[in-house]
């Protein structure tokens, strides 16, 4: 075991897969000599050389499009998009090309690639660096979307993503990159994509969250247990597509109260989808309406107000109070 933070866990996963599988190739902007703007690929150029760790020209669509061509021809490319907010440049290549290659070729061609991208608020970035855009890709059948929030999950899920036969969008919460360390096995291991984790068991309220919001949720849940005696179950989805509806529904049946917390804008996103799922399959278990604490339906705001815009501890606490009032 080694104590790692998320960015070290990502680096470790990439290194192990580059060592294990000659077909793995890393592409991205500034990932070579610079080691990535967050140092996620630190040291990999030195260890594996320019053939395997490639500083590409600055063009997101081509990074993803190249990965599609490579993957279709038998390689296992892992592309880094420097910030998820830049993914709009590659929207066709990711949502229209990568996602549907297997489908439109009736299985003749596949795109087993990974696109990694940091995202998430609270770090005072310039515009279009912090947006949580997972909802866009919930609407892109053929893609898997993985959003870990701990070093252990990040390593196991990234290795699983690289070995997955389908394309995976792997989103890394930049505020959590160095937020804490955790014991992580030094050897390679995989975690199942599509499996949520119950990070805290409880009986009164279920909070469903993922990625960047998860750390704040866990803190609030622990505080409430201690100070208010409310037993909160926290589900960290870890994977958005495919969604682990089983874990969600079992918890809803147990606690009968559900709060969904995510950083993305409120409407039409993953939170709305989970709420609809509960509505369709577990509505008679509910003692209160399913509530959401999320970003607002504005563009991601400027640094001066982002802490108020994000689902912070106060807003999550209010959500719990409202649920319990029913």
């Amino acid at each position, binding site marked *: 075991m080694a104590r790692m933070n998320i960015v070290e866990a990502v680096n470790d996963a990439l290194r192990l897969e580059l060592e294990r599988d000659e077909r793995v190739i890393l592409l991205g902007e500034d990932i070579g000599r610079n080691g990535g703007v967050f140092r996620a690929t630190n040291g990999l150029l030195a260890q594996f050389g320019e053939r395997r760790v490639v500083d590409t*020209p600055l063009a997101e669509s081509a990074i993803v*499009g*190249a990965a599609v*061509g490579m993957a279709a*021809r038998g390689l296992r490319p892992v592309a880094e998009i420097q910030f998820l907010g830049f993914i709009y440049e590659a929207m066709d290549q990711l949502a229209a090309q990568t996602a549907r290659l*297997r489908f439109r*070729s009736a299985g*003749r061609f596949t795109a087993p690639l990974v696109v990694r991208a940091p995202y998430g608020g609270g770090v005072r970035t310039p515009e279009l660096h912090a947006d949580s855009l997972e909802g866009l890709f919930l609407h892109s059948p053929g893609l898997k979307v993985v959003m870990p929030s701990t070093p252990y999950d990040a390593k196991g899920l990234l290795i699983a993503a690289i070995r997955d036969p389908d394309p995976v969008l792997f989103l890394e919460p930049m505020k959590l990159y160095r937020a804490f360390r955790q014991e992580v096995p030094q050897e390679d291991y995989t975690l199942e994509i599509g499996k949520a984790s119950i990070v805290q068991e409880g009986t009164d309220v279920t909070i469903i969250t993922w990625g960047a919001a998860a750390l704040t949720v866990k803190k609030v849940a622990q505080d409430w247990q201690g100070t208010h005696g409310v037993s909160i179950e926290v589900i960290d989805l870890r994977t958005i597509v495919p969604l682990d509806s*089983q874990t969600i529904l079992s918890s809803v049946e147990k606690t009968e109260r559900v709060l969904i917390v995510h950083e993305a804008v409120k409407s039409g996103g993953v939170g709305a989808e989970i709420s609809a799922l509960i509505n369709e399959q577990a509505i008679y278990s509910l003692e209160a309406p399913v509530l959401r604490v999320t970003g607002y339906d504005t563009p991601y705001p400027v640094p001066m107000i982002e802490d108020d815009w994000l689902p912070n501890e106060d807003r999550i606490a209010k959500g719990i109070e409202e649920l319990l009032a029913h």
Partner: protein
Amino acid sequence: MWLEPDDIMVDTFSVLDEKGRLHGEEPHIEAHQIIEMYKWMLLIRLFDERAVKMQRQGRLGTYAPVSGQEAAQVGSAYALRKQDWIFPSYREIGAALVHGMPLSQLFLYPMGHLAGASPPEGVNVFSQQIIIAAQSLHAMGSAWASKYLEKDEVSVAYVGDGATSQGDFHEALNFAAVQRLPIIFFVQNNQWAISVPVSKQTASRTLAQKALAYGISGIRVDGNDLLAVYRVMQEAIRRARQGKPVLVEAVTYRLGAHTTADDPTRYRQQSELENWQAKDPIRRMKSYLMHKKLWNEELEEKEVRRLEQEIAESFKQAEETPRSRLQEAFDHVYETLPPSLKEQKDSLG
């Protein structure tokens, strides 16, 4: 020093003139190869006419005619080796056929089958692209894979003049040049992107000269001159195999509509069409072959009959292909059906 557009002079390479008369050197291509290529062109023209007819009868959905571009497609694809890869757009049935696509498979896409864009194993043709220029990037990635795996293969991105305006086209050329990939960007400049003429597509006098900005070589060829295209492509392949990407502009013309849903009389003059009909690549080749005593009307009639029968049989085969079923739409979304999708599939009963 200012760079001026007029600094660049681009000639158009050709072997035959518009009447099919040799000007300049003999191309040194075996007679049987020339005849074989000519037969491919005939097949494509006949296929195209048949497909449009079938669409009018309601037996085929939207179809993108290729007539007029036979020389560009046959001359380029015929020069490839089996292990090379092509990344076609939706108007590349000619190149796809020459590179090994079965005729009947080409009917499946416009018929609306789920497997319409699924070339058989062993045929190195990528699923035809719908989004303009998107395949340039896949070809580039494929060429990169060939280089990475040290395989002697080239990848060819087939695009049109409209595609050269897209960001993906630019990005693909740029990446390919930086990485020194075995790739050929084969641009068929057929003068029209639906209703927009090439003069409104770019202020460049030629598309070939764009190669220079990427630091690679380019060439402009008469795309209706089969022998010229073939010769150019042979040289392009030679360069690409050395890790030198090439941009080829084949100047040609789309004689038909953009698709069967398009009416070209809304945007182009009859006189222009007639002007290009006079430069028809098949007629030109035929007169060359007849002049060389390699072909005659009797052979032509016999070949046309044979090809029409082949097309009719493949159309029949395509029509007899079992209809796609909604249940099958779930089969190739992911390798393994996730639970939520399985639920949706199961709900179909």
